């Protein structure tokens, strides 16, 4: 449905996007991640047709965004970051205006406006001035605008911006529902959000595509990078002779000597004779399970454990590792 081929864009000497390619088939929900200034917004603006790439091509449902602009754009519903709207209009008049520009007839437009007002919980404020609405409501008016013409592709830039936790949950439900029948590209800073709704994650850093995989696979991919962010962690709760911190260092010294353990950190202050620590494996042992070794050592030393678990890295940690490696590459490139 969305086909992006080697797109590039420079602003003067700044190379914002340096050759990004991917395909998004129908019905897939993809999350677009990247730090600020990574080229994420430029990429989204090129896909929506707001900007033309310097080279490369983009097609939406088979229509080129540069050669068949209006037809390609008719397949897209776009919510830009911070949902820009006309403050002097009401949500209803704004949506009616947008419906006309999408080519809907007056009666179809009216039906579509009623439908999206209902779906985005905007009925109560439909006749209030947009300038007087809260940020959360304005965001929903923007989302309603994107859904208006029932396009097969939805592109949402930071849809959770400015929403309170309840609204975020409601919006997530709505996006999930919309994602069942549409192709979606969602950019967000909230990684947990993407993990919950996206089938696939695209990570952009320094203008290039660093990763393209389902969230779980991305974590596995990232673990090949030698960053402490993507190694699993062991959480251990063990008996200590006293709640004194000095005593704790002695009581956990053996743990740092277990083969494969690189570092031991205190996770929470000791209470009632129990201390909670985390152990980080070294890069060579990142893919091994050290639980048996730790438990065996504890038994032989007579240390009592009441918890021993292995925690896999989250998408956020995988993302941080990918970004770090991209930044390393970029600085190496500059040095060269």
């Amino acid at each position, binding site marked *: 449905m969305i086909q992006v081929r080697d797109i590039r864009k420079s*602003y003067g000497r700044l190379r914002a996007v340096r050759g990004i390619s991917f395909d998004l088939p129908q019905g897939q929900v993809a999350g677009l991640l990247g730090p600020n200034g990574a080229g994420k917004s430029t990429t989204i*603006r090129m896909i*929506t*047709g*707001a*900007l*033309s790439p310097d080279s490369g091509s983009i097609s939406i449902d088979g229509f080129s965004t540069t050669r068949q*602009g*209006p*037809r390609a*754009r*008719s397949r*897209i519903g*776009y919510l*830009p970051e*911070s949902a*820009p*709207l*006309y403050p*002097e*209009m009401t949500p209803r008049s704004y949506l009616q*205006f*947008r419906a*006309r*520009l*999408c*080519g809907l007839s007056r009666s179809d437009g009216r039906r579509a406006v009623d439908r999206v007002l209902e779906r985005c919980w905007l009925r109560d404020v439909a006749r209030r001035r947009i300038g007087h609405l809260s940020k959360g409501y304005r965001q929903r008016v*923007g989302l309603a*605008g994107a859904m208006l013409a029932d396009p097969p592709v939805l592109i949402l830039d930071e849809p959770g911006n400015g929403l309170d936790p309840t609204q975020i949950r409601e919006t997530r439900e709505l996006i999930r529902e919309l994602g069942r029948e549409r192709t979606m590209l969602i950019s967000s800073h909230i990684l947990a959000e993407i993990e919950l709704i996206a089938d696939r994650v695209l990570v952009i850093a320094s203008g290039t595509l660093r990763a393209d995989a389902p969230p779980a696979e991305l974590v596995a991919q990232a673990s090949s990078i030698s960053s402490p962010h993507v190694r699993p962690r062991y959480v251990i709760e063990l008996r200590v002779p006293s709640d004194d911190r000095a005593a704790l260092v002695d009581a956990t010294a053996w743990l740092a000597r277990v083969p494969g353990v690189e570092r031991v950190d205190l996770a929470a202050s000791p209470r009632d004779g129990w201390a909670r620590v985390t152990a980080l494996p070294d890069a060579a042992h990142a893919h091994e399970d050290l639980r048996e070794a730790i438990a065996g050592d504890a038994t032989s030393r007579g240390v009592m454990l009441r918890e021993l678990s292995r925690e896999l890295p989250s998408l956020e940690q995988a993302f941080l590792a990918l970004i770090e490696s991209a930044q390393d590459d970029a600085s190496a490139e500059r040095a060269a």
Partner: protein
Amino acid sequence: MSTIAIALREWRSLFRLPVGWIVIALFLLLTGIVFAYETLSPGAPASLRNFFSLSGFMLMVVAPAISMRLLSEEYRMGTWEVLSTLPVRESSIVVGKYAGACLFLVSMFLPTLAYVAVLYRFADPAPDPGPILAGYLALALLGLFYLSIGLCCSAITSNQTLAFLATLMTIFAIHMASARLPALLPEPFASIVRELGFAPRAADFARGIVDLAHVAYFLAGSAWFVLAAYIAVLARRWR
């Protein structure tokens, strides 16, 4: 259909904002004073000449005030990003915006028909309709021309103040250049530059002379600036 929707939104939004009402109120106040004190005085000729010359002068400021927000405001607010990603052609956006501003100008001139009605009611002998029609035609053409310059300036910058000043400066520059430059230039350049001026043409209309060449000048000039605005808007996708 999109062009009409854009034009109507633009026209309505000017009435939803203070700027629209302030411009109309000031225009009617000043022209009203001139009409009441100069045209309606005993013994004064039954013509709207004073009103037309003041209106023509005021248009130089009023038109840039209306046109400055046409596209600059969209760029500044970020609404351009939505507009430019809808299935609408750039030409529809540019023409729609221009038509909306022209409609606003028509709304501003409409109440001045009351001056004409008053003149016909009280003047004896009745005024000659020719100069009045020619005067309104001149105002309409000047309005179209100034607004097209304003649209073009607004298409280039996201700063409304800059758009306003650039429009004003362009209008003055055309006026000054066509009035002063010919004396300094050799022929045939002097006549070419003189022909590019609009002030003598507007003066002809004020005398009741409707010359088709003048009409063509204003229409062609407006079309040229609207085209320049269209190119500026197209270029935004390639920035």
